[in-house]
């Protein structure tokens, strides 16, 4: 099994979710994160003093899938999250040695 982690633009979250849904993905976990990268941040002025906001809000999407599904899921996310503008984000894939569904104790593919 593989864990696919994607960092995307927050306002794209709904599109990505919908795309994954229609691609048959039945589960995912998302969280709010902050990103630092080429996109850069911006400087704000507060009461006359400047301060730099280096981190931009991003959304992190985590999906555990069967090895067979990885390419398709990566594909789907890339498409649905892309705006073509800098800062679209990254997707990375890591190995998962075990997956358990807490409710049933099922393991592996059955637990997805």
């Amino acid at each position: 099994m593989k864990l696919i982690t994607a960092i995307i633009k927050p306002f794209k979250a709904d599109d990505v979710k919908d795309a994954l849904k229609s691609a048959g993905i039945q589960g995912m976990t998302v969280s709010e994160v902050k990103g630092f990268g080429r996109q850069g941040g911006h400087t704000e002025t507060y009461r006359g003093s400047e301060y730099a906001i280096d981190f931009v809000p991003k959304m992190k999407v985590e999906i555990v899938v069967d090895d067979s599904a990885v390419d398709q899921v990566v594909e789907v996310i890339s498409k649905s999250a892309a705006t073509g503008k800098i800062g679209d984000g990254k997707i990375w894939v890591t190995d998962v040695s075990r997956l358990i569904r807490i409710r049933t104790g099922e393991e592996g593919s059955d637990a997805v």
Partner: protein
Amino acid sequence: MLSEATIESVQAILDNVWILIAAVLVIFMQAGFALVEAGLTRGKNVANIFMKNLMDFCAGTLLFFAVGYAIAFGGDMTGLGAYLGGDGWFLAGDGIFTYGTLDKFVFFTFQAAFAATAATIVSGAMAERTKFKSYLFFSAVISAVIYPIVVRWQWGGGWLFQLDTPFHDFAGSTIVHMTGGIAAAVGAAFLGPRIGRYGADGKPRAIPGHSVPFAILGSFILLVGWYGFNAGSWLGAGLEIGAIATNTSLAAAGGALAATITTWVRSGKPDVAMAGNGLLAGLVGVTAGAWVVNGLGAIIIGLVAGALVVYSVSFFDKVKIDDPVGAVSVHGVCGAFGTLAVGLFSSIESEGVVKKGLFYGGGTDQLISQIIGVVAVAAFVLVAASILFGVLKATVGLRVDQQEEIEGLDVHEHGFAGYSNAD
């Protein structure tokens, strides 16, 4: 009661009702001060900030009742009495001073609210790094002794009132606001800047406040309370309160507008927090002349104060006096400016009370008295506050330790966080 009602008795009751309502409006300002200070600082200190403002009310009320009132208004005004009162402790005795038709308790309620205000002003400048215990001690001393002495000098009939051309400070640009503002500057200087306020390069780094809505809601509440502050300072019910209220509105509007435009021009964007400061700057500025200036004068005072506060904030940033809410600029600088402005914009001549200002053909008499008053009060508060903070720093200590400052005063000083998302 009705049976023996006379025109005078009804007018007297009307005076008292109005001033009591004005006092309630001024007491409401405590909530405004708390919100402005909390909004312009970080969430990890929010409970501490509300606590300080709550304690200012408690100290202001109890100590002004016990001693402050007597120091400010008690006893005769000759000799030492021109500098310090000393009769009517605990408001005891019916012979003690009160103003005009006002019941002594009504007059006290109004004056005590002012005392709490003077203390609260300081809170903002010392926010996010002051030991609660030390703040409490300071707050007690300023509302029990320092502020009452300043009041004595003018409103209490003291030496500034006894000048040939009396120093004129209608509702307290100097007596209340500059007094608070100077003490605030001293406190902030003794404390030193918050951790992270200045970069390695020594350049100021902004520490954004956690809630603009709190800051502006607080400013609105202060505006509302200010009508009691200024129009109530007529100390009776008369038609004059209309012009006073109008001047208050115009200066407030001018101040917010000027601060908005100034920041817009300076940094390319209209700064909301500064607009709030500008509103207050205009209010502080017009407080001294609320009765004696006309509409045009009020607008000019407001506009100047609103622009002034923006540059003043940057100035104190540069000299490393870290004032999270701009209290020194709003109350200290604009308080002084507004008081001096009376010497320029006063359009009223009233025997033994005030002369016309320089721009209204009254020459420099009033202006000179204004300068004397501002300098004298500033000097006194500077010295008194320095001694007080010096002693506190040397004994209890003024500032919380580094870890506490980083993790927030709420948890360390008060035992729990001001915000919780516990389930």
